[in-house]
């Protein structure tokens, strides 16, 4: 019995050993990781540029990326633009999706990294394989961005704007609640800091009752959290500020249904929120510019891959814009957003990129 088992173990070990020590000579530069020097992108035509727009996972926020990417493909005559949301909010799965896209010939990528503290390693890997990368929608945590540039909402500033709008709607005093996303995401920490800044600026007139985190996973989770909040403490709350998509939608519907005198300020421009602004149940929202991120990001990536331009300061962060939308500008804010996208294109052309004379 022992001999047979020993043979089995031995054969299994041999199989694995054969896999590990697969014969073949190579150099360190041939490894799959980021150890090698980045390959210089060869000059290519726009028709040879294939851009992948890769969010961290499925989320309504990113849906405008699809149409903006298609528009950029038509306008710029690109070889291809794809939208891949198979990352499922897991950095390992997103890395696998990115590697698959690279193997399929996509040579430029606009990426919303799942983990802001890990995404620089992914960028380094992709760059070492000759792929041009940009952070879209979210910048890496810390001071360094290994991507060519970051085009994103400045999340702390957007959260501060939203909290300021809520405080104004509350009459400059009272009790505020903050609803947000994943607590262990560095972007959430920035949003919490932004709300705190706005509250601190009131000199104690506004008190933060609580910050409810981890409720942006889906709408049902957010609805339950908001319902529990209003049932337990609705009477003492003067304002709610949401800095994540699902809590914002849930709070808009719940405040309207409860008929409590709570001033609600949301984030993004979901139809529920816009309807709430029109009927007065939502005081304001802070709209972002995902379409601008995808269009301008694709345009800039194309310029870099074709060799027409280089980045003046690699890793530079550019604010894609955030807009306070209330009853006064709910019908016209999109014009303001489109103007911001045009301004971003000019900003990239004039200052962010260094382009060769045509």
């Amino acid at each position: 019995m022992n001999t047979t088992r020993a043979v089995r173990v031995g054969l299994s070990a041999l199989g694995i050993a054969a896999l590990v020590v697969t014969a073949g000579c190579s150099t360190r530069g041939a490894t799959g990781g980021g150890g090698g020097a980045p390959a210089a992108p060869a000059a290519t035509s726009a028709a040879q540029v294939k851009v992948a727009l890769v969010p961290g996972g499925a989320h309504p926020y990113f849906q405008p990326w699809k149409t903006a990417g298609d528009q950029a493909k038509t306008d710029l005559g690109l070889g291809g633009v794809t939208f891949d949301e198979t990352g499922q909010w897991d950095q390992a799965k997103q890395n696998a999706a990115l590697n698959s896209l690279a193997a399929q010939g996509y040579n430029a990528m606009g990426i919303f990294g799942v983990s802001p503290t890990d995404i620089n390693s992914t960028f380094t890997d992709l760059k070492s394989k000759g792929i041009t990368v940009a952070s879209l929608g979210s910048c890496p945590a810390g001071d360094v961005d290994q991507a060519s540039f970051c085009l994103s909402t400045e999340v702390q500033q957007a959260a501060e704007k939203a909290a300021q709008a809520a405080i104004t709607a509350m009459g400059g005093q009272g009790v505020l609640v903050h609803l947000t996303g994943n607590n262990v995401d560095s972007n959430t920490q920035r949003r919490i800091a932004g709300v705190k800044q706005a509250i601190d600026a009131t000199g104690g007139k506004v008190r933060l009752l609580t910050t409810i985190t981890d409720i942006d996973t889906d709408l049902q989770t957010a609805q339950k959290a908001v319902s529990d909040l209003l049932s337990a403490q609705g009477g003492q709350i003067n304002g709610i500020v949401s800095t994540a998509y699902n809590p914002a939608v849930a709070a808009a519907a719940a405040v309207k249904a409860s008929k409590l005198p709570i001033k609600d300020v949301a984030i993004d421009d979901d139809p529920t929120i816009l309807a709430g602004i029109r009927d007065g149940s939502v005081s304001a929202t802070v709209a972002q510019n995902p379409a601008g991120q995808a269009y301008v990001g694709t345009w800039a990536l194309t310029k870099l891959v074709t060799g027409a331009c280089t980045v003046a300061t690699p890793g530079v962060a550019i604010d894609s814009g955030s807009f306070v939308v209330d009853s006064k500008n709910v019908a016209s804010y999109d014009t303001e957003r489109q103007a911001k996208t045009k301004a971003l294109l000019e900003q990239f052309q004039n200052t962010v990129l260094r382009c060769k004379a045509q």
Partner: protein
Amino acid sequence: MTLLADPDSETQRRPPAARRGRWVLRALTGQRAGLAVVVVVLIIVFGTLRPAFYDSRLVVFPLLRDIATLTVVGLAQLAVLSIGHMNLAVGRMAAFGALVSGFSYQVLGLNLVLGLVLGLVAGAAVGALAGLIITGTGVNSFVVTLGLDFALLGLVTLVYGQFTTLAAFTVKPPGMEELRSYSMADLCVGDVCGSPAVPQLLLFTVVALAGVGYLFARARTGREMLLTGSNATAAELSGIPTKRRVIGAHTLSGLLSGLAGFMLAVTAGSFTAGIGSAFLIPSFLGPVLGGTALTGGAVSVIGTFMGISLTQVIQQGLSMLGVGLESLNIYLGLILLVALSAVRIRQLFTRRRRSS
């Protein structure tokens, strides 16, 4: 190897030549061989449809790196499945181990190896705690590890919040980046080097496979764990210290979870509370596909590696074919069903042929 509590009693009664013949037949017709055939067929199919599937830098290297980590996760679950238990906290134990390693690097300034050792000790300690609670209270492992999962979720989040501003330990000790990106091509004997497609991180998995394989195939302790899983009362009456074996299995599960957490942190680039959040389903999928019984008493160490490889190859292949999010999981489920049915049908045919 599928290792049973008493697999060879019948085999032992046969003459040596018959035993050898029977083993060869079993090896060729068993579940692991079937899985290997399915994996090879899928690799050929995906490679034919998308030749880039064989790209060593962009596909094979990262694919093997993922398989390496998830196989260790599968082994962590296998350790407790051997005694008929479950570990629902496998992901949080990984997060806890990674937390301790990350803390060691960022706050204590320790080197890569010492941080790894502390992470493994932390994982093993949490696993041992689970085992102690189970044996001490008699509460089902499902309930205990579920409770531990919630407790660790809170604890890990709290510690990251207390010690970091980015909710992550981002300091990389010397060697971590190399461990992440170096392949066997960087290990040479004379002029002969390994393949650039095989990550060095896979060596951790080989050590884990060898260790767990040895435990259940050769060591008395492992056999006693399997007997405990097969029939705890009978094992107790046979003089096996079942409580110690239960604690040992959970300690091993925690240790391997800690290793998987470290490997994922190395692969991703930092130590975050999100580590391990996607470990639970693969932890069951690998062992069960490989032939490990959910009821205890039978484990398949190499089968776990094959099971994880199967699911990862399918996911990578579908991703290469451009299957969208809506269809990805449907195709994954369908291919797994077809693949496992094919393995089962093949086994049935072989059994009938042998009996006739």
